[in-house]
């Protein structure tokens, strides 16, 4: 009896200690109704087996999303439009080059940006899906369907002005120019208090060898992201070449479940675009925000990481998947391999 009282006393003493440094914050995210079908995020045995998904097709979050959620990290998404009223999204700041103001202009074919944004930052709120960096701050920058190069530069400058740590670009033009490269160089070197803004570009969905064409994803100092499918292989459409850096799930037969324009106006008739919808969200456009979310978690763990630090981790800790030989850690079809969040975060001190 005495020892029982002693034990209870010890327990009370332990509870009374309020040592913030020893507190491990455990985020609750697993109650998202559609998380089970977000095959790119984590392994769900029933869902994976029912749909014959390769067990390694996800990014290997291994419960780390309980600890990391992108809190304090600002991710700028440059895209067509985002539904700021979506129940699963919180947009911190907006800017539109169309209205030259915070007000985003809506058009019935501006569906892409809402899908991209959800992949990064859909909230853990028991309403729908889970973004990889679900507590990150989203800065949404609206682009036009055709733009002058100087306007493109202004968008990147705006992202910097609004405090972006990461800029996610799920678009491209198959061109390159000195002026945009100059802007990218400046942001990656001098942005984020000289730690550099991390800029990602989707490599495109045309099964093209990018060594034969120009493209923004080939620019120096950007992270070029290709797509894998639910077989954990390079998606057949994903462009390739010597400038490809890393692969992330982008889907093919099965898409990436994400947020959709509210109501009937989006890709689907629901508020979410599901993995098996007719117009499921798939492509390097989906892979890029996954990688942007991963980098948000990396910066949460260590905000001092630079572009070079992140590239070193990508080079050394990506999964070397696929049938092609990796020479010096890379090949042209998979870059340095596929993102592995668990390995990446463990590699960060």
């Amino acid at each position: 009896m005495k020892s029982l009282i002693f034990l209870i006393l010890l327990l009370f003493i332990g509870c009374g200690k309020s040592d913030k440094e020893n507190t491990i914050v455990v985020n609750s995210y697993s109650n998202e109704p559609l998380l089970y079908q977000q095959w790119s995020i984590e392994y769900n045995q029933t869902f994976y087996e029912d749909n014959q998904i390769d067990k390694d097709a996800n990014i290997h979050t291994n419960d780390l999303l309980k600890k990391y959620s992108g809190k304090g990290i600002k991710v700028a998404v440059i895209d067509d439009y985002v539904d700021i009223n979506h129940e699963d999204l919180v947009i911190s700041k907006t800017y539109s080059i169309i209205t030259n103001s915070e007000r985003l202009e809506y058009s019935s074919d501006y569906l892409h940006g809402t899908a991209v944004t959800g992949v990064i930052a859909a909230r853990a709120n028991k309403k729908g899906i889970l973004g990889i960096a679900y507590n990150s701050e989203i800065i949404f920058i609206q682009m036009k369907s055709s733009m002058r190069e100087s306007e493109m530069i202004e968008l990147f400058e705006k992202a910097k002005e609004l405090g972006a740590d990461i800029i996610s670009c799920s678009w491209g033009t198959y061109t390159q120019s000195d002026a945009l490269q100059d802007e990218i160089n400046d942001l990656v070197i001098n942005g984020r208090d000289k730690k550099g803004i991390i800029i990602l570009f989707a490599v495109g969905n045309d099964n093209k060898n990018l060594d034969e064409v120009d493209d923004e994803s080939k620019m120096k100092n950007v992270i070029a992201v290709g797509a894998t499918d639910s077989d954990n292989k390079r998606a057949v459409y994903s462009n390739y070449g010597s400038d490809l850096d890393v692969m992330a799930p982008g889907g093919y037969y099965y898409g990436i479940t994400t947020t959709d324009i509210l109501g009937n106006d989006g890709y689907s008739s629901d508020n979410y675009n599901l993995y098996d919808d007719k117009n499921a969200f798939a492509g390097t456009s989906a892979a890029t925000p996954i990688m942007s979310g991963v980098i948000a978690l990396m910066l949460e763990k260590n905000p001092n990481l630079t572009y070079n630090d992140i590239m070193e981790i990508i080079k050394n800790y990506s999964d070397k998947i696929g049938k092609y030989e990796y020479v010096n850690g890379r090949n042209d079809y998979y870059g340095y391999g596929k993102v592995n969040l668990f390995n990446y975060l463990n590699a960060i001190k």
Partner: protein
Amino acid sequence: MKKIFLLFCVTFLFGEYFYSNNKKIELNLISTSRDGVKFYSLKNGEILGVGNYILVRFKKGVDVLKYEKEFNLTLIKKIKNIYIFKTPFNQALEISNKMYKLSDVIFAHPDFIHIMKKR
């Protein structure tokens, strides 16, 4: 055969182009809009628009005004080190190509209009 050779020479000598990353990029005119924007196709089939604006970065300490006068340019805006100039009508390619070769210039090319492709 002679005609084909002649056509090749004419295209090579007088075809339109711009410079990017120290490469000469060839352009094929496909249409001109009512407001004078010319649309070109690149070798890869992509389309670029060229209006009457150019983007130029000079080396440090260069007398920019001198070049404004020489090429009859109007300064529209400066974004950090990049100058956006308006050129006389229909001369953006010609002027930017000339400026690209100047030792005072780091780069110069038209303020291209791009079609943004979501991926």
